[in-house]
């Protein structure tokens, strides 16, 4: 790493390429990124360069990329020094919005497909994102070193599905470095330089932002015109706020300050923004005295799953609040609304991109902020078209979005309920088709398409109600296909649905965490399952506990947890009661942390344990 700041003016637009790597999860995107970084000398070649771009602990643990990262690579080809900006993308369906965001700063993509697994659901989804953005696509078949690799077959799949000639595919092994140089050369040859001019006024697209506790907001920008340097006075097209630039630089992948950034380049800037919301993703920054037409920007991430989050102990409210604020600074896709409940006290209703996103967020709260929380049952954003004049007046509109089951309006005041749907893509070996079709039908899905992508692989498209896939569809699919089927989905609007609110009661008292909005066809089965699970989870108490599922006043399922009839230790041996006293005192202490529903005491984590389904169920 040079001590002196790099002079970015030596990289004119013609020698710049901005690209992403897109792939289905585990097809080797991060490994390829590591190799590219090594070859270009961006990072030194060592054994421990594993997923350099995955910075978060959860990313490394779970083997998924949650947050897009960027790295500038320097590469000399045929006597010309090129600046290659690699904008990494997340590899899970929950985070696909990040992909489209990253692509907006690119002119091309490397589409990585596993030589053994072939095209998977996310390959399809990512391809279309790139295709629709009119980006150059470089197909790469990875893992050719594997014993079962069949690159020929994968080439045919790519031809059939994406209409790309087989001879355009590059066969590589990112792990062993085979043909990775070729990929870099193709990037230079096939991906056009960005079309823009340094002589134009500054036009910078904010495509990501992070928050640093010492330096404030760090905005990742792609320059579509002009140049930017320390001291420049800039303005946000979105907020109309003015800032003075403190620092600019490139990402390698850590921030490396430069004197300037020029049109076509990708880097970061720090300009005294205090909150991530000031660096709105998709916003355009320009020189305060030279306003420009803002770039089109893009749709902001839309939360698909909502859940209530409450501190286990209300005295922890402020700590949790500050942890949430800090974490959402770096994850602006989480929406946060204050919420409160009689049972759980003050808390929030959070919106997530998907269930994995919710889990990752929760895990980060625990790992990075040492917070443990109560999460309510996840719910999707339903809508209701109101018929009651009173309610319409109250809301100021006749259509409301319901993200909290507690606010589910009664059928009498509603003319129609609507549920969100998604178009799901499943790619599977054909032997699992039967089971998968049954699974989809169970989930109220409607088949839209079915296509053999080669002689034994099938792509299915189904229209799913979102709530049917949100909790455990992916696990179920993986389980019944021995892990071979893949799944991705995209937003497909709303459809009319026969929805009801189901309550879970313990000895007649509702458990707020478990109230759910559900399709009426599913209520009985779901109610029964929840009651059974609760029976296994709640410890026996001194009295019998009726566990019931109810719709309005009607009980649709019931389990009975019998009372403790004997619970007394037989013997305190030889006067040794110290251990016994410790245990009892711990139990007394635990009493204060129990969630009390009526007179029933429930451990705090019981409800989440109930909602998490075991893979084989």
């Amino acid at each position, binding site marked *: 790493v040079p001590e002196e700041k790099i002079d970015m003016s030596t990289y004119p637009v013609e020698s710049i390429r901005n690209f992403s790597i897109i792939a289905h999860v585990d097809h080797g995107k991060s490994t390829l990124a590591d190799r590219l970084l090594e070859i270009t000398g961006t990072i030194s070649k060592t054994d421990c360069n594993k997923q350099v771009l995955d910075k978060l602990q959860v990313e490394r643990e779970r083997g998924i990329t949650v947050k897009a990262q960027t790295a500038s690579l320097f590469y000399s080809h045929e006597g010309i020094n090129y600046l290659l900006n690699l904008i990494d993308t997340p590899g899970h369906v929950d985070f696909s919005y990040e992909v489209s965001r990253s692509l907006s700063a690119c002119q091309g993509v490397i589409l990585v497909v596993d030589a053994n697994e072939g095209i998977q659901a996310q390959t399809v989804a990512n391809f279309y994102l790139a295709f629709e953005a009119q980006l150059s696509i470089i197909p790469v078949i990875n893992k050719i070193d594997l014993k079962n690799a069949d690159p020929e077959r994968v080439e045919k799949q790519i031809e059939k599905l994406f209409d790309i000639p087989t001879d355009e595919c590059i066969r590589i092994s990112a792990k062993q470095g085979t043909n990775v140089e070729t990929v870099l050369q193709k990037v230079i040859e096939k991906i056009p330089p960005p079309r823009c001019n340094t002589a134009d006024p500054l036009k910078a697209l904010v495509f990501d932002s992070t928050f640093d506790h010492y330096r404030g907001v760090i905005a990742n920008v792609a320059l579509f015109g002009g140049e930017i340097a320390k001291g420049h006075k800039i303005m946000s097209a979105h907020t109309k706020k003015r800032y003075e630039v403190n620092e600019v630089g490139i990402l390698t992948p850590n921030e490396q300050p430069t004197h300037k950034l020029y049109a076509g380049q990708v880097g970061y800037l720090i300009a005294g923004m205090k909150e991530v919301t000031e660096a709105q993703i998709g916003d355009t920054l320009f020189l305060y005295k030279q306003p420009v037409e803002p770039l089109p920007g893009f749709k902001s991430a839309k939360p698909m799953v909502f859940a209530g989050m409450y501190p286990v102990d209300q005295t922890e409210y402020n700590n949790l609040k500050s942890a949430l604020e800090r974490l959402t600074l770096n994850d602006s896709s989480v929406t946060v609304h204050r919420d409160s409940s009689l049972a759980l006290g003050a808390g929030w209703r959070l919106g997530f991109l998907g269930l994995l996103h919710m889990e990752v967020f929760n895990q980060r709260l625990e790992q990075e902020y040492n917070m443990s929380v109560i999460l309510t049952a996840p719910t999707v954003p339903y809508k209701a078209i109101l018929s009651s004049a009173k309610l319409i007046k109250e809301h100021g509109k006749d259509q409301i979005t319901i993200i909290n089951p507690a606010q589910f309006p009664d059928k009498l005041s509603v003319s129609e309920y609507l549920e969100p749907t998604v178009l799901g893509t499943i790619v599977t070996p054909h032997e699992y088709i039967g089971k998968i079709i049954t699974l989809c039908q169970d989930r109220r899905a409607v088949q839209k398409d079915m296509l053999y992508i080669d002689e034994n692989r099938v792509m299915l498209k189904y229209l799913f109600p979102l709530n049917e896939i949100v909790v455990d569809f992916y696990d179920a699919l993986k389980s019944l296909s021995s892990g071979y089927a893949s799944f991705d989905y995209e937003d497909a609007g709303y459809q009319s649905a026969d929805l009801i609110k189901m309550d879970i009661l313990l000895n007649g008292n509702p458990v707020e965490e478990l109230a759910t909005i559900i399709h009426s066809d599913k209520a009985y089965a779901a109610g029964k399952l929840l009651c059974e699970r609760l029976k296994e989870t709640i410890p*026996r*108490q*001194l*009295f019998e506990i009726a566990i019931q599922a109810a719709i309005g006043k009607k009980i649709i399922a019931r389990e009975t947890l*019998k009372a*403790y*009839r*004997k*619970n*007394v*230790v*037989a*013997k*305190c*041996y*030889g*006067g*040794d*009661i*110290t251990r*016994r*006293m410790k245990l*009892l*005192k711990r*139990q*007394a202490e*635990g*009493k*204060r942390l129990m969630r009390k529903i009526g007179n029933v005491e429930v451990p705090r984590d019981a409800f989440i344990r109930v909602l998490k389904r075991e893979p084989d169920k």
Partner: protein
Amino acid sequence: AAPGGGPGRQRYRTGCCRDRPRCCRGTGPEPVPEPSAPATAALYVHWPYCRKRCSYCSFNTYVVPAVDEAAVRSCLVREAQTLLRLSQVHSVTSVFFGGGTPSLASPRTVAAVLEAVAGVARLAAGAEVTLEANPSSTSTSRLAGFRAAGVNRLSIGVQSLDDTELRLLGREHTAEEARKAVEAARGLFPGRTSIDLLFGLPGQSRDAWAQRLEAALGLCDEHISLYQLTLERGTALAARVRGGALPEPPQDLLADMYHTARTVLVAAGFRHYEVSNFARKGAISTHNLSYWRADQYIGVGPGAHGRFVPRGEGGRSREARVQTLEPVSWMREVQSQGHGTRSQAVLGPLEQLEEVLTLGLRTDEGVTHERWGHFSPQLSLQDVFGTPGEAQALQQQGWLVLDSGGLRCTWAGLAVLDSLLPDLLCQLQRRWGHRRGTEPVAGTRGL
């Protein structure tokens, strides 16, 4: 049993306190002066050896090729003398030889300990002296020897009267040998022979248990202890259950068995005077009763526990003491300094009350106002539990009674005591924290 969770690290010695009597008491405020401790105590003596380890046993016992009995004897004698002097009790109310298998020791050892007791304090004439005995080491002549040594009560580990069950438990004796042992004991200790029985064995049916109980009633004297088998971690039996080789007894079955036993024994004229203990014709064990009444007791021998005020070194507070677990180390310590106390901890007033409550409620008399008042002169039983709160709710639900006799469990409440105690402890801790006056909150440590 493995020596307990690293006691070595928090090793307190009475020795280190000799010059600076309060150096071990921490830096917290001095405990509230307590009412004068009675100058009496019960004495527990631990014999740590067995011929064979039972499959369910996790007690501090050792199976060794040869026991140097003379050495063990002299150490038991020496430690008894040291600790009795330390406690400055004038009178020992009862002695209990437990184990291990103390009936494997020679009557001489028992006699030596009893003589030592009598030499330091008064051992009241007729004071209860119990020996735990295994049916495999209780010939009439041995028993006579123990009687001559001063033992006047026997507690026989019958455990079951079925050979298959006895094998499952890893016992060395047969049902027939157990019967003979009990008969021999009753001949020598009429009215003062107790038998131990276990129920809730893996695979044991309710009917099988009822049969064992009938058989035991035909055999027993005036005292029966019956314990639900606890599958203790680390025992062979627990491993077999966890591994799936044996079924885990269902909760409801255990409740049924307990209920059956209580009903049958009460119908046979027994008083159910403690969770696991039944006596008729007044044959209750006064030694065990001293634990449940939170009287002073001194523990002698490897791993023995005690609760007493070490007045001999100027102590004014009740302490919880544990002797070194492992016999060889224990002996070395006794030989070098007169005792093998591994840990001693002052019990604050609240901790003492927690023990009074937890143990007292195990008995049919419960916690009397008098006993409570002895430990808590300011905050009465009524002050703590007579005010709205957990205890009143439990009273209304029929688990508990608070009246002129004190606080005690109902018949139904006794069977679920461990579900009542956390609530009662919460209430006690809360009331103690809010008690009138501005006394320093000594003893709330660790809450």
